[in-house]
């Protein structure tokens, strides 16, 4: 990338945080959201950030996305492009489904024909090829999230950040979208940083699950998920590891009971 690129053993790291802190406000009103967080995400890796409320996991995504500035430490994404998906699909109602997916391409100055072609491909990827001319309000919540995913993919970013993208969906839809996301991640060779408070979801999807403490957010554990893919959320391996992580998370939450 640049001259700043380190030539150490972690050259395949696409996201690197070293002792990153984030503080909101100053003086007696200061709130420390993240406290010396260090983590790396490698090329093609699927990393889940897990924590209870107030662990600053969304803050961390905003920092990586460049929507917010760090207060201390180093954050290096080597000038790579990121895209970010939220819990709400936040599609624009004045655009059709294709229009929404084409928007990032339009902003990049891609020509009309090329845009149409690329959007159609992406809608096929999320299995919404037949819904191109629909309006967002005509789709279900799960379908809207898939359009949002297609829009995020249209940015052609190196890193896909996801902030509880399936948090507002029903269990059945969520399970299917896990399968879909796993497939797309594999086919498109994405690097994903996925925030959730759902332990099973994290174990279902991640190569690694990073557990954060709350107020301030610190990395307290970095679990490797080794059960083979494709996984099922109700498989014994996923359930077993989820139970282990849940215990750790509960202990962390109980610490705040004072």
């Amino acid at each position, binding site marked *: 990338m640049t001259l700043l690129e380190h030539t150490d053993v972690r050259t395949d790291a696409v996201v690197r945080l070293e002792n990153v802190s984030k503080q909101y406000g100053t003086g007696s009103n200061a709130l420390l959201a993240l406290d010396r967080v260090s983590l790396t995400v490698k090329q093609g890796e699927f990393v889940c950030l897990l924590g209870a409320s107030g662990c600053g996991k969304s803050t961390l995504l905003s920092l990586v996305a460049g929507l917010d500035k760090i207060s201390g430490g180093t954050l290096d994404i080597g000038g790579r492009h990121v895209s970010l998906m939220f819990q709400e699909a*936040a599609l*624009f*109602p004045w655009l059709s489904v294709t229009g929404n997916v084409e928007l990032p391409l*339009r902003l990049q100055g891609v020509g009309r024909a090329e845009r149409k072609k690329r959007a159609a491909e992406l809608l096929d990827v999320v299995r*919404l090829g037949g819904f191109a001319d629909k309006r967002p309000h005509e*789709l279900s919540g799960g*379908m809207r999230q898939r359009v949002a995913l297609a829009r995020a993919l249209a940015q052609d970013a190196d890193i896909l950040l996801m902030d509880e993208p399936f948090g507002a969906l029903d269990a*059945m839809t969520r399970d*299917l979208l896990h399968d*879909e996301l796993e497939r797309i991640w594999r086919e498109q060779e994405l690097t994903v940083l996925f925030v959730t408070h759902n332990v099973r979801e994290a174990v279902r999807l991640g190569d690694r699950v990073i557990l954060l403490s709350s107020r301030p957010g610190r990395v307290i554990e970095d679990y490797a998920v080794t059960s083979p893919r494709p996984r099922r959320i109700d498989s014994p391996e996923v359930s077993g590891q989820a139970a282990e992580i849940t215990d750790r998370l509960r202990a962390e939450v109980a610490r705040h009971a004072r």
Partner: protein
Amino acid sequence: MPVDAVQEDTPSVSQDNEVSGLDALETAPKTDRGSSGRRIWSSAWPKLMAVAIVLLAWQIVVWSKWKPDFVLPGPGTVFHDLGDVITTGDFWDGVRLTLTRAATGFLLAVVIGTVVGAAVSRFAPLRAAIGSLITGLQTMPSIMWFPLAILLFQLSESAILFVVVIGAAPSVANGLISGIDYVPRTWLRVGQVLGMKGFAKYRHLILPASLPSFISGLKQGWAFSWRSLMAGELLVIVPGALSIGVRMQQARDLSDSSLVISYIIVVLVIGILIDVLFNAADNALRKRWGLTGN
């Protein structure tokens, strides 16, 4: 992550079916709302009924001899006279003149209101300076402006135009300002994530997002400009310009109540027709955005 090739292919077919099955279940089937004739009738009969009731009440008052017939004529006389009036080419010249004034004034108000509204929502000091002034202007009865307008522009088209614009522009500006103020935060975040800045942000996010509020502003602005125009045509009589207001004033001078009421009906009908146009635009937008109650 390397995946076992045997496991990889088998689930994808059923997964495809599962996904599209769920999509089909979650998108509502189209419901038949009946034929268009039925729909028009079901929305029309209450209106026709209301008109019938008003006409009946009017006729009853006339029958009661509360006022002599030549002061308050009945619907029969008025509609007969109205029929006579609207079949003359002269009358339509008047309508054309009035509507041209209305359109000119309204369009000018839209341009000025949009520029001012955009400027106010863009620059905080400007908002602090004139934000509440705009709302103040909006509440001011437009007829208050005529004495000044006549002094500034004499009895001319410009005097009428001045009042129409000053009556309508604040509504247009306020519609745009509140539209921009209430762009949902999540959309703004999406804009940020997509790297929208400056002009592109306005073009692709702020302006389309503020459209519903802008349209309500236009609708309100039209109502104000139409009212100001009618007041203006009664007060500012430009020699040679036989607008609807002037004709009405002439009818009053001749004590022709029937003709005065005829012109009231004409103004009412024009107002309703234009309101229908604005509502159609508003409904089309709401439908596209999915804001209607299904």
